[in-house]
């Protein structure tokens, strides 16, 4: 039996009079790696941002480990403390070194002992293969290095789920691989991950489920390899053929 980490029930999100998410229902079980794919502007980032209340929802419900996610309530802080987020543009704190970036939330948000946190942080830098860059400032690092620090920062609070929003699409091609390699390691560890990505190969290799989103709706979901080999819907077929053409 698996535990449901995340549950979307008919989620509706509007910006003004534009409906961005139009009744999204799905769930994420513990240990799953769910990859969201879909055309640009279709609401993938928005869906991810609703999970930790960076956006409010206008209809339906999202439950994280049984708790309703309510962006405007104080309870959201408690939800966020159990979720790690990795952004497309890293969003590292530029005034702090890599090590300080990783240590900040455990120390000030979770009130952990500095020594314990520093030890764990050093372990995380080893995991993301950046032990030699611990004292660098974000501006001194390449995009790939910054994104790996961002992953270490997200891991530092022992989150129950990791949210990735196109973690490699702002990177130079030569540094994409090092970030994906770290993400593969996380998958092997059995982390629960929700990944918005255009890296179809990664989704096929690592994902346990693929969700194709279009026009604010889930058009198709299933096993990534099966879906890539034989998409059931016409829209998924068209989308997948465009991006695999672009990749060649």
């Amino acid at each position: 039996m698996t535990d449901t980490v995340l549950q979307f029930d008919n989620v509706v999100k509007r910006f003004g009079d534009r409906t961005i998410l139009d009744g999204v229902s799905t769930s994420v079980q513990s240990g799953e790696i769910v990859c969201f794919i879909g055309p640009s502007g279709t609401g993938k980032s928005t869906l991810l941002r609703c999970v930790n209340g960076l956006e409010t929802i206008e209809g339906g419900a999202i439950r994280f480990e049984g708790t309703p996610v309510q962006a405007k309530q104080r309870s959201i802080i408690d939800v966020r403390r159990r979720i790690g987020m990795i952004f497309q543009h890293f969003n590292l704190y530029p005034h702090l070194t890599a090590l300080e970036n990783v240590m900040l939330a455990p120390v000030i948000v979770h009130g952990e002992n500095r020594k314990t946190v520093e030890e764990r942080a050093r372990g995380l830098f080893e995991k993301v293969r950046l032990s030699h860059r611990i004292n660098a400032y974000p501006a001194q690092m390449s995009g790939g290095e910054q994104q790996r620090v961002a992953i270490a920062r997200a891991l530092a609070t022992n989150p129950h789920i990791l949210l990735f929003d196109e973690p490699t699409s702002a990177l130079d091609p030569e540094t994409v691989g090092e970030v994906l390699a770290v993400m593969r390691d996380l998958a092997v560890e059995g982390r629960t991950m929700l990944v918005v990505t255009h890296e179809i190969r990664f989704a096929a290799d690592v994902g346990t489920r693929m969700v194709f989103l279009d026009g604010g709706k889930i058009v198709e979901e299933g096993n990534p390899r099966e879906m890539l080999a034989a998409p059931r819907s016409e829209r998924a077929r068209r989308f997948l053929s465009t991006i695999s053409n672009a990749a060649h």
Partner: protein
Amino acid sequence: MSAQLLSYTPLLLKAALVTIWLSWLALLIGAVGGTLVALARMSTFLPLRLLALLFTEFFRSIPILIVLFFVFFGVPLIFGLDLSPFAATTIALALHATSTMSEVIRAGLESVGKGQWEAARAAGMTYWQMMRHVIVPQALRVILPPSVGVYIATLKESSLASIIGYVELTKTGLLIRETMGSSFVPLLLLALIYFLINYGISLGGAALERRFHVNTRLMTAGAGQ
């Protein structure tokens, strides 16, 4: 005559200190008040935002001398509460500094990218944790340089207190001038003292900025490992 002037030196020094203290106090109140007004300006609650906007525009548009008269003569009339010239001047200057500083602080806070606020919130920080550890340290680099300018402006404006009879630097200079038969020399001396004080503040501010700048360089360029 110069011997006579020399004998006034302790008086002038004391007056200079009064002026520095007065404007420093006004600036401090202005920094705290300006922070509150800036946060109100950025609030999601519309009435609060409008109130803050009104406050800022109001005090930006009215001469400080008028505000000073209102505080000094108006407050006793309306509230039956006598204000000393010192208190009245401090309040008037602080009101003006608050409106200026609120704009400076708002610009500083808004200079911090949206991604920073989101990363801090996603990490589960409370509003104050986010401000204290993520936003303010970055905003300060933008806030500091114009704040030095606000201090200098406030210090110069404090000479208006002489009009309601408060004996600060300008008033002291004018009193000395009277005893010396309307000589021109005390005025020159006044200008020189103001210049020295403000130049000192400028230098101090520049030194502070340099200290911040070292960090800024690390933050924005590859200074090597």
